[in-house]
């Protein structure tokens, strides 16, 4: 039973789980970036991925990667800026729960607008490094240890790794990154040393949405671009963020990838209940370890 077949089968599931896990991880980071600076859970996070995927659907086939990526980042920044300036800051006087509901409203709005612009059906998106066939551009596949992996899956993992590394360096070394961390830890203190907390909030939204958009471009060839794709990604990313400890980037990444793998392995065993699995895990973890799988290092200070 635990022979070569069993090994390669599970390896296959793990590999395909990592692809969706990477997206959950990036969405989880987005949740944490915004949570850290505002204490708000931004439920429009999944829609940022959708916007990236739509940009890819429109641009990738015609203009290629070098245009699609910058435009997606720009579109993401713009959308994040709009949400921060016109939705979040005007409503800032309300309680955190009001703001969370406002983000749900924003997410419904983005979904509706996307349906208006791009229609209601899934749109095929060409793989980054695909092969041209009579049907359009199709993904290449590799065989590793009995598992089949698409070239696009490799792209997803690579882009996620780059983003995570970039975020790490930004928060560790960049002045703005440090200021954002300071504003997150103690907003009054940060204000006292001259950090513009409001600006940090805007920057955090812009960053989170740009991150989501980049993830969207990268996974669009695998997931297809669909106006209602953001909801499921957002919820799974939220699970990952909570599992990893809200506000903890490393935790979110690990939890996201784990969640993706568990989902796939479980899908192979008992597919009828596969959609519930991330939420069952979430509930269990919240009962046992409310601070998340990977507890944040002391922020009591």
């Amino acid at each position, binding site marked *: 039973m635990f022979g070569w077949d069993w090994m390669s*089968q599970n390896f*296959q*599931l793990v590999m*395909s789980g990592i*692809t*969706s896990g990477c997206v959950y991880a990036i969405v989880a980071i987005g949740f944490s970036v915004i949570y850290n600076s505002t204490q708000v859970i931004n439920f429009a996070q999944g829609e940022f991925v959708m916007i990236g995927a739509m940009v890819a659907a429109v641009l990738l086939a015609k203009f290629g990667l070098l245009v699609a990526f910058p435009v997606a980042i720009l579109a993401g920044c713009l959308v994040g800026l709009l949400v921060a300036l016109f939705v979040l800051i005007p409503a800032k006087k309300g309680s955190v729960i009001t703001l969370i509901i406002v983000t749900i409203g924003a997410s419904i709005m983005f979904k*509706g607008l996307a*349906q208006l612009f791009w229609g*209601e*059906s*899934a749109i*095929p998106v060409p793989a980054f490094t695909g092969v041209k*066939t*009579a*049907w*359009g551009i*199709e*993904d290449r*596949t590799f065989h590793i240890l009995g598992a*089949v992996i*698409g070239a696009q899956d490799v792209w997803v993992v690579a882009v996620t790794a780059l983003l995570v590394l970039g975020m790490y360096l930004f928060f560790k070394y960049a002045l703005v990154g440090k200021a954002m961390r300071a504003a997150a830890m103690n907003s009054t203190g940060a204000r006292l040393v001259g950090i513009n907390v409001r600006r940090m909030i805007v920057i955090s939204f812009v960053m989170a949405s740009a991150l989501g958009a980049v993830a969207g471009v990268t*996974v669009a060839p*695998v*997931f*297809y671009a*669909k106006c*209602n*794709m953001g*909801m*499921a990604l957002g919820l799974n990313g939220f699970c990952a963020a909570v599992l990893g400890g809200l506000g903890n980037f490393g935790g979110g990444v690990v939890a996201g990838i784990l969640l993706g793998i568990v989902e*796939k*392995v*479980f*899908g*192979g*065993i008992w*597919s*009828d209940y*596969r*959609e519930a699995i991330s939420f069952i895990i979430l509930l269990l973890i919240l009962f046992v370890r409310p601070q998340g799988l990977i507890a944040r290092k002391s922020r009591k200070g």
Partner: protein
Amino acid sequence: MCRKRFLLVLLIVAGLVIGLGGGMCLAAKKAPLAPYVIGAIFSTTGDNAPLGVPERETVDMLVKQINSAGGIKGHPVKVLFYDDAGKPEQAVQACNDLLADKSVVAIIGPTLTGPSLAIAGMCEEAKMPLISCAASVKIVQPVRSYVFKTAQTDSLAVGKLIEYCKAKKITTIGFINDSNAFGASGREQWTLLSAKAGIKTVALESFGTGDTDMTGQLMSIKAAKPQAVICWGTNPGPAMVARDMRKLGITIPLFMSHGIANKQFIDLAKSASEGVVFPAGKLLVAKSISGAQKKVLLKYAADFQKSCGKPANTFGGHAWDAFNLVVKAVSKVGPDHAKIRAAIEGTKGFAGISGTFNFTAADHNGLTKDAFATIIIINGKWTLAK
């Protein structure tokens, strides 16, 4: 001077009289008869908008056609559109609105099974003719006297596929379905009818509408070693099943449902769509069929392409059938609900888009499995399967 002014006044008065009189004369000639109002509930937003949108576009087009040809015996046709977003509670709201409006002669739609079932009882009680465009057999079984449907029942599609399996001597199947109402109902019918036909289902899996990868499910199906895979769902899930089967190197035949009866499936699955077999309404292969339906199908396909700039699909066809059944009944018996109901039930040999309808008191769908053709995708084109 004075005379001139008098003449001017006379001229103006004369002009007014003639103008008014002429106007009144015109008005009398063209006095619009009260419009016949049809209610329409479609899922034009939400997950199932790809079904609901062409239904609405079809009805929009038909209304324009019928009104520019003088309406029904001089009465213009007016359609009140409602969007239920695929949700039963919104369909109930829309239905309440339509039932309160005394001018509504009949309701067409909803697009989906859930909303249709939610309002079927309401329409029955209010004695309002309802022609649903949804798939499930439960809408018309048990029979409600005022409730009809035009979409082919899913058991007919399952029956057609079983016929094909038998012809190809396939006795073991791995079944995977969408967890939405369409997929779940297909699975129910498959389980029921395949057992009777002696076909064994060796693996039974499902996927969610938000799923992005089918590896897990397909690995378990592969492990059960069936002779073929059947996937019952609506896009994009089935495209992912086809794509991931190809990716994982699973080469057994892949059969699907009428849920993929649109170009989108081929666009999404690309080369993996090659060789996929599915039962679907004859619209897709209109050119290669014979019989009464051929002319109707070709005209609808051409009209829709012209008016909407995209190819017609079978979902829009369900609305075409529902709308025309109502129009036919109203032009025969006028706007009386009970008479419209009886006229629809009495419809025989009506060649529509979804099939040739023969309604009876016991059958309010009026179709047989011959409403379907078995289609195979070859080189990205729909072809009649042998």
